[in-house]
């Protein structure tokens, strides 16, 4: 490779005068040091928003979470002017929707990954892989519009919490497929061969050998995917309007969630509403971070090492 020749011809004479053994010229040493400083600065700059956001939400919303009411009461009957009430309705809604989304997307996602790794060969597998990529790239608002176009405009149904789950499913499937696929690929072929040699059928090999071996990795992928869809707000705005009361029925009425609770109040100027918005933001961040960190910790115990 010609580019590997790093000695700048013009720098040579200067280098010789500086040092008989051809050490670094001042210019090259300076560039090296400058690059080192730039990299450190870049890292620090990248951390500023993280620290700033976490600090701001903690400072402004932290006191809300210390109140027991926050975890036990809803906002039923409480106006923007009044303090009090809690976020349990929104927390509950977010968790229910995330759970249902996971229940729908995990089987589809894991099976698709199994197909891609264990069964898929040739054109169909290429097509599936390509479509998963496209699905990864679909903006959440487009997924929401699609569900709206199907659910409301074509079938004439109401905007229901279950429709939100369907939109979130579209966003979660590709993350589950990709992370599971990656984990399944790490399972050594020797394990499969050993199983086949003992006469175990392919499906049993996959269910009893391949998936258990990569289980913790798959769980990590699911938790990280879940963390991603929990913060998605665009489908909620289009399909799942906010309400201040506790609602647990996915097939009727509205279901409040933490993101819509923030969206409902973010333009308010009244202090109680502002406090509640920060509180909701902090709660949402906490839930997502817990999922994230749990996912990463479980990933550490993975049997298959990358």
């Amino acid at each position, binding site marked *: 490779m010609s580019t590997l020749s*790093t000695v700048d011809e013009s720098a040579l004479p200067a280098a010789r005068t500086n040092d008989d053994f051809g050490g670094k010229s001042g210019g090259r040493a300076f560039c090296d040091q400058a690059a*080192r400083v730039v*990299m450190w600065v870049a890292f620090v700059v*990248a951390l500023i928003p*993280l620290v700033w956001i976490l600090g701001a939400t903690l400072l402004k919303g932290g006191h809300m979470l210390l109140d027991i009411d926050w975890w036990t009461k809803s906002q039923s009957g409480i106006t923007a002017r009044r303090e009090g009430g809690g976020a349990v309705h929104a927390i509950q809604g977010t968790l229910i929707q995330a759970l249902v989304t996971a229940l729908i997307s995990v089987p589809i996602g894991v099976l698709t990954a199994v197909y891609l790794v264990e069964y898929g060969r040739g054109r169909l597998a290429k097509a599936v892989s*390509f479509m998963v990529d496209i699905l990864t*790239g679909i903006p959440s608002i487009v997924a929401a519009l699609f569900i709206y176009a199907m659910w409301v405009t074509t079938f004439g149904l109401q905007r229901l919490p279950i429709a939100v789950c369907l939109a979130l499913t579209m966003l979660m499937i590709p993350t589950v497929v990709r992370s599971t696929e990656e984990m399944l690929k790490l399972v050594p072929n020797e394990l499969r*061969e050993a199983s086949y040699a003992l006469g175990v059928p*392919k*499906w049993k090999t996959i269910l009893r050998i391949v998936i258990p071996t990569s289980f913790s990795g798959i769980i990590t992928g699911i938790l990280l995917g879940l963390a991603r869809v929990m913060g998605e707000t665009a489908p909620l705005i289009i399909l799942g309007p906010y309400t201040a009361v506790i609602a647990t029925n996915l097939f009727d009425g509205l279901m409040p969630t933490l993101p819509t609770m923030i969206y409902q109040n973010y333009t308010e100027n009244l202090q109680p509403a502002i406090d509640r918005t920060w509180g909701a933001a902090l709660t949402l961040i906490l839930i997502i971070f817990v999922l994230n960190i749990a996912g990463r910790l479980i990933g550490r115990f993975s049997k298959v090492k990358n």
Partner: protein
Amino acid sequence: MSSITGHSAIDELPSGDGRPPLDADKAGTGRLGDRIFGGLATGSGIFVIVLVSLVGVFLVIQAVPSLLNNNANFLTSREWVPSGADPRFGIVDLLWATVITSILAMAIAVPLGVSVALFITQYAPAWLSKPAATLVDLLAAVPSIVYGFWGLSVAGQYFDSVAKAIDAVLGWIPVFEFNGSPIAKSTLAFAGVILAIMILPIVTAISREVFAQVPTAHKEAALALGATKWEMIRTAVLPFGKPGVISAAMLGLGRALGETLAVTMLLSALNASAAFSLSIFGGGETFASRIANDAGEFDSAQKTGAYIAAGLVLFILTFIVNAAARVVIERRKAFSE
């Protein structure tokens, strides 16, 4: 971690031990269990294909009638009156706002993300490398709506002086002209900055993965020839990682184009009569923010169709960007095998 990006470095490498994968069909014995399980797996794969096709089909079917009724040119008009007897709507303003915010985000996030990735893989001391990577990944865990709220009520006020400083130095170029309306935190430029923060973890994660794969032999060869660390990075690490960085940038761009909430909360919409402005310190709406802003008003099929048409353009735009990223990755795969 690929779970942030949905893109995996494994795709780019030959399978683990370098052998072709086991031939699937000979292991499946045609037993009932095999047929059921194989059928389920294949069915899920086909379901994904059908799902994506349905997205395209549904959006097109619902957009076409509205587009046919449209009395303005959809691609070049700046009007947005999607309902009534004389529907007139066009996307040129939306396209401009979407593209300019995303380009700004890229201009900030790609150099920064690549530097951070280089820091993590090449410069950071061993004890810092992993925690640093996790911290940057956590940026991706902050939900979009929190970025929007934070930008609006905390960080935005500081952008005013930044905008004024840029205006003072570069204000004679129309693109950088800042006249205080809308206020700095509601401009396209600030939306671009927030988008940059949001796509930074994506760019960093993918760049990090490829930089970590640079063969040690390449790096040691450069160092043995007397290169300084920076020269080693420039001559060994960066050329090896270039396709990865390009695909990282494309995937980041794809995310920035479709990002909804943060942009919706920040940007201030223009008046219908406002003159077109080239400035990044202008207001406007992106595809996603216009749809989100008006989500409560989808009352007639004609009106909904207009928004779906806008969504369709966004879908096509992200599709092209992501497909391009995919092509770059595929090329690299062919190269590394």
